[in-house]
């Protein structure tokens, strides 16, 4: 169910599905925050690759050059983010995630 829901939102909004996977892993499978986020990233690898194949192959909308340029700082960022996450309380991860979800909801409605 989590996989299907995550995939649906990935196809709908171009997000990797983590915004769905992490809360579901925590709420439905009683995962701790760190394990939920790590497992989410691993699942997103598969989900995003499939979604790229669908979107890029079917519609030709992927700008590979821009993706590669912007992915470089993003990769440095995620290495830093995972490093920091190991050193903060798990509750803080839930709090950050909640704030992000509220911001995303606001952007979705107002943007």
């Amino acid at each position, binding site marked *: 169910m989590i996989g299907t829901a995550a995939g649906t939102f990935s196809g709908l909004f171009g997000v990797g599905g983590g915004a769905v996977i992490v809360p579901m892993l925590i709420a439905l499978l009683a995962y701790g925050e760190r394990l939920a986020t*790590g497992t989410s990233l691993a699942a997103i690898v598969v989900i995003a690759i499939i979604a790229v194949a669908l979107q890029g192959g079917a519609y030709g909308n992927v700008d590979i050059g821009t993706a590669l340029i912007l992915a470089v700082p993003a990769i440095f960022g995620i290495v830093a983010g995972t490093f920091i996450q190991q050193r903060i309380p798990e509750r803080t991860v839930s709090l950050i995630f909640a704030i992000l979800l509220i911001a995303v909801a606001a952007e979705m409605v107002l943007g």
Partner: protein
Amino acid sequence: MDLALAMVVCGLGGVIGGLIGVGGGAVFVPAMTILLSKGQVEAEATSLLMIALVSIVGAWRQRSYGNVNARDAAMIGLLSPVGVLVGVVIANEVPERALRIGFAALALYMAWRLLRRAFGPEDPESGQPADPSGDDPPGAAGSPASGAAPPAGRESAGAGDPPPAARPTTP
């Protein structure tokens, strides 16, 4: 200049992704639409490629910290194509405004659940935030849906966490 700013924003998106386990698309897409003037569809498609690259590195780092349940991750990932197909079809059929409002509602519900967890009581046995929802059956920590899910307290955290190298690895 706008490209440099977009790179900075995407770098911050990567940090957020690493912190909370998302691919960063929620940051990448507006960075491209606002700063690089890309269309919504092209930005979303391009962000998916970025997410693929970024999440590979993120998952690799989290695995080294012992924070990946590979079995559940594979199950979620492999079942997602059904959802992806559904999502792509819906995106082409349903008005964008309705999609946005629906996703916003789901995001707010999830935020509410996480806020209750962040500020709720702590499980005295595991030292981990207790799920205050009451939706889960007792003993849900053993994961009724997946035998591979660990006990809730296994990766319990807090300021006194041992260094990553000393933590047990994921089964």
